């Protein structure tokens, strides 16, 4: 969360976050979302008005813990089903543009 902490102390850099998320936004969109996000962050900052010095930071809103399943194999989907939603396929695999490292 380090990266976001840094951002939220001031403003969210919408253009940067959009690039990370592979979203291509027009300048006007960046402005619109910037305004909306600033508003949301400002709203969340109301929390700062409370005295939270004795409250532990939480990572989860519910109090559940240790939700496990046993190590048992269950059949997967049929390959036809798996590929049914693939926009493109090659040899029963999801086809993507050539990956160059």
């Amino acid at each position, binding site marked *: 969360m380090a990266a976001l902490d840094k951002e939220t102390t001031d403003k969210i850099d919408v253009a940067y976050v959009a690039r990370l998320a592979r979203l291509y936004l027009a300048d006007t969109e960046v402005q619109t979302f910037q305004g909306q996000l600033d508003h949301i962050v400002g709203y969340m900052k109301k929390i700062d008005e409370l005295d939270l010095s004795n409250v532990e930071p939480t990572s989860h809103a519910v109090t559940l813990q240790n939700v496990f399943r046993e190590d048992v194999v269950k059949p997967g989907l049929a390959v036809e089903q*798996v590929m049914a939603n693939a926009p493109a396929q090659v040899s029963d695999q999801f086809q993507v543009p050539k990956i160059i*490292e």
Partner: protein
Amino acid sequence: MRYLTTIGLEVHVQLRTRSKMFCGCSTAFGAAPNTHVCPVCLGYPGAMPVMNRDAVKMTIISGLMIGSRISEFSKFDRKSYFYPDMPKNYQISQYDKPLCVGGSVEIDIDGVSRRIGVTRIHLEEDVGKNMHFQHSSGIDFNRAGVPLMEIVSEPDISSPEEAFAYLLALKQILLYAGVSDCNLEEGNVRCDVNCSVRPEGQKEFGTKTEIKNLNTFKGVLNALKYEIPRQVDVLESGGKIFQETRRWEVETGVTIAMRSKEYAHDYRYFPEPDLAPVVTSCEQIEELRRNLPELPRTRRERFIQQYSIPEYDAGVLTADVAVADFFEQSAKLSSNPKAISNWIMTEMLRLLSEREMDIRKVVVTPAALAGLVKLVDEKVINSNSAKEVFALLFEKGGEPDQIVREKGLVQVSDSGAIEKFVDQAIAENAKSVSDYLAGKDVAAKYIVGQVMKMSRGKANPQLVASIIEDKLKVEKMKRGG
């Protein structure tokens, strides 16, 4: 100028579970593409992950084996990045609350033992596999969601050889712990290597590079043997090292800078809301600690003490936990553990390596080997016949005494019978006899060989040798020696 090297390793180990980390899909290797997948590991919206209990347990056991502190509170986080082999566009991993913190692995370099610190062990899911076709790539998600334990070392490693020794020691511990098959051919263990150099005397570390996704230990060794001098050369010629990710090219033996992915290092971790935290009580940790398998080093020391075998033997026998188990089961049934050790270190390991077999698959039982050693010790069979019996046990299994009876291998220690063979051999090998009498002692060995042949290998060789010696002495006197 002398340079100091600093190396840290991130080792990804596939855990030995039957099903994936967050769903019931099989982890079996080698299935047809996209046949071990479901909505969870394909990252379908709304599909909910549920933690594999055994994967968490195995990670904690691994931590205990290397002396980690086990976190009473641990949680999972989403690591966001985009790559075609990752269906959700985030990987479920652990950021600030890993399951295990700290620990160390002991290595031996040139007889000196050192501890390499471990920073943490966390649990995460593997990604899919890319196949490259002529004009496109294909993604197989069978491996996506397979549980991976990431073991991060401290930057304590100072040479390629130490890195190699660390990996071997770690693998041995994990095999002893039974938490991974550590099968490198199947990609069970993969390493990322961080490495930097700095001039001697400089306090702060140099700029590091990361070599990604090495899937053999030799690869780690060779990549470092290339990368360290490369960095030194750059600095010596007044250049600068860039913090970058590099790839090891096996064919050409060089590391190459990978196209840097822009912003790739801003993973924007945040808590995985779909998974509840893992809370492990002191009692649970102590329970696991009590049932922990012995460490390879502890077992080696114990073998030396308990079975009075040389340090060398103990080292060979404990290298593979299954070999150590076989030895121990057999030695417990025998009054001659050293002989058991000899059979395993020579015949057994030779046959296993010739056949590329695993000792877990052999048909010869520890009890049969103990029985064979007893037959030799009681001089029921000689060592020639014992080799024959071992070979049969290795092929078909069975009981050694039964094989000895069936094959008629009981040692002939009846001196009358042996004398007959000796007389015949002396009569038939006049040349060897006169050679011996002319002072060539080795000629007697040839006659021993002839007698052993006549007895079809069953004669007691010591008895044969002494009878021949006596007879030849008599012969010598007869000829006026």
